[in-house]
Every structure is written in structure tokens, then in C-alpha cells.
């Protein structure tokens, strides 16, 4: 089987980042960089959710827990302590790992819809906590007064181009890291658990531990998405921990596709562009966006990239016999939802 190496992927990532770094000089206007910063936040967030949904078969309704946690933790640390951005960044990742471990230990024991609902409950608990704990979190007003951005390593995040580089850099690095994870032995263990969680224990796999790891890893990346968002809006709002934010990530991965690694990114681009475009064009945002969503959901019955991947594979092997799986990547691209 053909496999990509970490070296090759890293080189691709560097090349992509180089192109991204130059793009603002070609595409004029801050509208583009603004879009890319948001795309970075939601792209990382949605891709991290897909680690759970697409690769581990864990359908979380409450991934926004980590997005909200990332926003608030990063914002609060920067507002309260005289620390540099990387320190706050690492502390937030650390906190999300701790929270993910505790919450995950409770949640990942449950399956399917029960897992979905218990994650939702924990996310809404965080939301209730943010709303109720006004002296610290600012309650429903959110963290106001802006997030300080002391320069570090020559990076000044109050400059829009620096923020763009920082966000897209994080995006590329996070995607590379997550891609590496899904190509690691652990990534294949996730697929095995997704495909048949009942079989895995009889191969010596401790399903609970693997799921917990997946939950914690996805949570940590979700928090990175949240941090970028808090830099974008220079604050944090309870909305970032509300169930609707989990909903948005779910819609992104369902629109873009869950069986191809970059599906969630495609979905994030689609939903953000749709949102921006429709909001600009008409006040009947719901009507238009709703129709487009139904068109995709009922027309394709799967995400765009899933559809494309299937199409591509069918073209490779027009006969209906057993289909060779040429690239390791497409191992995940067969419509998942398995089990006994």
C-alpha cells in the first residue's frame, strides 16, 4: 500500500503555509484575512470533532464544550495574568486536557445516542456555569474589554497580517498533527473501534482507554479552535459554549464529509461562505440557507467529499466486485457506520 510519510506531509504543509502567507498580497482586502482567521478557528474545531465522529465513531453533540473552554480559558488567562501568548496557549491546552480527561472518563463509557446526549449535558453545564459565574466570566455579556496581545517572538497579534499568519499557521500545524494522528497506529485503532467496538477487546484493545484518548485529543484541538476565535473577536461569549456551536461543527462535517480527512475543512469553507454570502444578499437568511442545506443533505445523502470520494472510487473500479483500496487514506472513506 502507498503511504505518505511524515516528512512528505510536513513539506506539503510548509508549502501550503508559504502559499497562504503570500495570498494576502494577491487577494486584496482584509475581508480575506478575516475570513481565513475564522476558517482557521472553525476548520480546526470541525476537524477535531471529526476525529471523534468520522474516525472513532463517537457522535458528540457537545464538542462545543472545548471550543468554549478554549475561548474563556485563553481570554481569562490573558486578561488576568501578565503572561505571554504562548504560555496562555499551552496552559489552555493543558486545561482542556484535564477537563477532557475528567468529563471523558464519564462520557466515553456510553454508546451512540447516549454518548451524544451526555456530552451535550456537560457542554450545557459549562454554559450554565459561564452564565452564573458572572464575577469571573462576565456572565452573558462575555469577557469584555478586549484580550491583551503582548508581542512574542516578533509576532504582534494586534496586526491583522500577523494574526492571519498566526491563525493559518496554527491551522496548517493542527491539520498536519491531526492527519498524522489518524495515520498513526492509534488512528487505525480508532477505525477498528468505529467499525466494530465489540470485536476490539478480543484483540487486546482497551476500548475505554482508546476512546478516552480520542476524546481528550479532539478536545485539545477543539480548544485551539476556540482560542483563535477569542483572538478574532477579542473576547469570549457564552454563545461559544452553547449547543449551537456544537451544532455548527456538526453541520460543517456533515456538509463536507466525514470519511475524508479534509471533508470538515471543505464543510467549514462551505458553511462560512454560505453564511457570509447569504447574510449579505438577503435578510431571509434562514430560508436560503435552509434550502441549500436540504439540497445537499437530501440530494447527496452524505457530505460533499464523501460523495466525491465514492464517485472517484467508482470510476477507478467500474465493476461491482471487490474494490482495491489503493491509498491508506481512503481506508476511512468507505461509508463508515458499521458495527455488528
Amino acid at each position, binding site marked *: 500500500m502507498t503511504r505518505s510519510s511524515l516528512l512528505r506531509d510536513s513539506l506539503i504543509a510548509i508549502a501550503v503555509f508559504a502559499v497562504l502567507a503570500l495570498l494576502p498580497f494577491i487577494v486584496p482586502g482584509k475581508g480575506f484575512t478575516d475570513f481565513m482567521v475564522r476558517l482557521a478557528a472553525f476548520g480546526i474545531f470541525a476537524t477535531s470533532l471529526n476525529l471523534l465522529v468520522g474516525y472513532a465513531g463517537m457522535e458528540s453533540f457537545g464538542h462545543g464544550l472545548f471550543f468554549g473552554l478554549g475561548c474563556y480559558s485563553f481570554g481569562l488567562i490573558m486578561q488576568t495574568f501578565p503572561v505571554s501568548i504562548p504560555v496562555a496557549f499551552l496552559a489552555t491546552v493543558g486545561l482542556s486536557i484535564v477537563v477532557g480527561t475528567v468529563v471523558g472518563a464519564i462520557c466515553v463509557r456510553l454508546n451512540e*445516542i447516549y454518548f451524544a446526549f451526555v456530552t451535550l449535558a*456537560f457542554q450545557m453545564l459549562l454554559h*450554565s456555569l459561564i452564565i452564573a459565574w458572572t464575577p469571573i466570566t462576565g456572565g452573558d455579556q462575555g469577557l469584555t474589554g478586549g484580550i491583551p496581545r503582548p508581542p512574542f517572538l516578533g509576532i504582534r497579534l494586534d496586526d491583522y497580517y500577523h494574526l492571519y499568519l498566526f491563525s493559518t499557521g496554527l491551522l496548517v500545524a493542527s491539520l498536519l498533527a491531526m492527519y498524522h494522528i489518524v495515520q498513526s497506529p492509534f488512528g487505525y485503532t480508532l477505525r477498528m473501534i468505529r467499525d466494530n467496538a465489540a470485536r476490539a477487546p478480543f484483540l487486546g484493545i482497551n476500548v475505554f482507554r482508546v476512546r478516552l484518548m480520542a476524546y481528550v485529543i479532539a478536545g485539545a484541538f477543539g480548544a485551539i479552535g476556540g482560542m483563535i476565535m477569542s483572538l478574532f473577536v477579542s473576547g469570549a461569549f457564552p454563545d461559544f459554549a452553547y449547543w449551537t456551536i456544537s451544532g455548527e461543527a456538526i453541520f460543517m462535517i456533515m456538509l463536507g464529509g466525514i470519511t475524508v480527512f479534509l471533508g470538515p475543512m471543505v464543510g467549514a469553507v462551505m458553511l462560512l461562505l454560505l453564511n457570509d454570502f447569504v447574510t449579505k444578499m438577503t435578510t*431571509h437568511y434562514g430560508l436560503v440557507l435552509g434550502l441549500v442545506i436540504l439540497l445537499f443533505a437530501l440530494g447527496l445523502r452524505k457530505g460533499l467529499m464523501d460523495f466525491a470520494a465514492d464517485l472517484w472510487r467508482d470510476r477507478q473500479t467500474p465493476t461491482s466486485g471487490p474494490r482495491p483500496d489503493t491509498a491508506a487514506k481512503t481506508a476511512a472513506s468507505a461509508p463508515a457506520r458499521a458495527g455488528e
Partner: protein
Amino acid sequence: MDLSALASCLITPSCVITQTTSGLIIGLLLFLVAAGVSLIFGVLKVVNFAHGAFYMLGAYFAYTAYQLSGNYLIAVLAGGIGVALFGLVFERLLISRVYGSPVLMQLLVCYGAILILDDLVKIIWGADFLSFGMPSAFQQLPFVFAGGVVPVFYLFLIVVALAIAGLLGLLISKTRYGKIVRAAAVNPSMVSALGINTGVVYASVFVLGGFLAGLAGGLAAPVRSLTAGMGTSIIIESFIVTVIGGMGSVAGALVGSILIGLVRSFGTIGFPLFTEGLMFVLMAVVLVLKPSGLFGKGGA
């Protein structure tokens, strides 16, 4: 937190009566929506995220019928029947296409539908909030039992909702239709093997669920302000109820709804700022201790 207030309420009969009826009325209206969510999940394995929008439609249908007829009974029936019909269209047109799809794909379809419905309501009935007005029959002084206050309208709602709950229970447990529905929940292939058209059964469950939600919308309309998006809060609470009661169980939905109603009515005295959090704590605890809910897995 104000635990002393809660304690002093619990030893005062008037407070117990008032808060209990208050919990009942919140719970029973919730039940009418949650029962549909639970049934639809139990039988169709679809998480009908759009059920809150059904409730909203029920209220608006009732509003228009009331404007035209001035008759509250007609208004409520218009809400129920209108949404039942809408549920049929919704199931045939949208949901029937995603049976067996991943739950998240169903969620996406429901979300698209909610966006459209909320916007349509805004286009048809306007962006302003609407008030239904209390039917004159209920413009009376509230009853007072042992110092506890119960409005006439709420007494009416409690009686109606309990009657509907009873009829629904009979329908599910005693009739042939109920047996088919319960069987379809457990083993759909068996039902179709017996020559019953499962498509019809599925559609009928949606119609039933829609009828209940529409009824709830119509019944509650005189004491709600009608706005696009009014379904959102009730759908989240319905999910909590469904999870607590056990997905697919009508009895569970009833008990879960009343439990949530009581948590809210007594919670507002003991924990006025954290009643919402209290519901999610309850939900998490039930899920962890008994994931299948208080009323387990058993049929519909």
C-alpha cells in the same frame, strides 16, 4: 442558593400546592411535545430536532384560527390537526429520505427545516411578537385551595393534558395500532414481514407526534408570546425529558416531564439562578447511572 427558603416552602401547604401545580402545568405542556419526540425516536430512531418548530407552528396556526373564529376550541384543534398534516408532509418529504442515515445527517436535515420554518413564520406572521389573548371563558379569578393559588385556565390545561396522556397511554398499550407501533419499535423487519406497511406506521407516528406538538402549541398559546424561534427552548427541554424518561417510553416522557416541571418550580425557590444547570445535572446523572433512562428500553 436559598435552601432555607426551599425548606420553609416545603413545610407550608399553600406553597407546596402552588408550586406543585405550577410544576404540573409546566411539566404537562412539556409532556405533549416530549411524548412526540420520544415516540418518534423510539419507533423511527430519528432524533426529531424539528419538533420544537412543530410546537411553534401549532401556536401560530391556533393564533390565526382564533383570529378568524374567535373560538378557542377550534383554535386548539386547528393547531393540532394543522401540525399533524404538516407532520405527514414533513415525514414524507424530508425525514423518510434519511431513515437509516447517521443520526447527524438527520440532525442536519432537521436543522435545515428549522431555519426555513422560522423564516417562513417571520415572513407570514411578521417579526413582531404576537399575543394570543386569554379566551374570555377563562378570564376568571383563580381558585384557592388551602392558600395555594391555581388559575382556572391552568386547571383546564392540566385536565386536558392528563386526559391526552391517558388516551395516548391507552392507544399505545391497548389498541392494535399501539401493538404495531410497539412492535415496529423493537423489530421493524418483523412487522413488515407480517404484511404491515412500515412506511405507513412511520408516517402515522409522525402525524401523531405532530398532532401532540401542535395541540401543545395551541393549548399554550394564550399564555405565550408567539415569536419565530419559540420552539428552541422547548426542544432542548424535550430532549432532557426524553433522556431522563427513557427514549421511546411514553410513560417515561410523562414522568420525566413532571420531574422537570417540579425541578423548575421548586428549583426557582431553592436555586433561583441555577435552575437550568439543575436540569442538565439531572440529565447527566441519569445518563451515567442508567443510560436507558428511568423507564428503561422497553417498547414504545
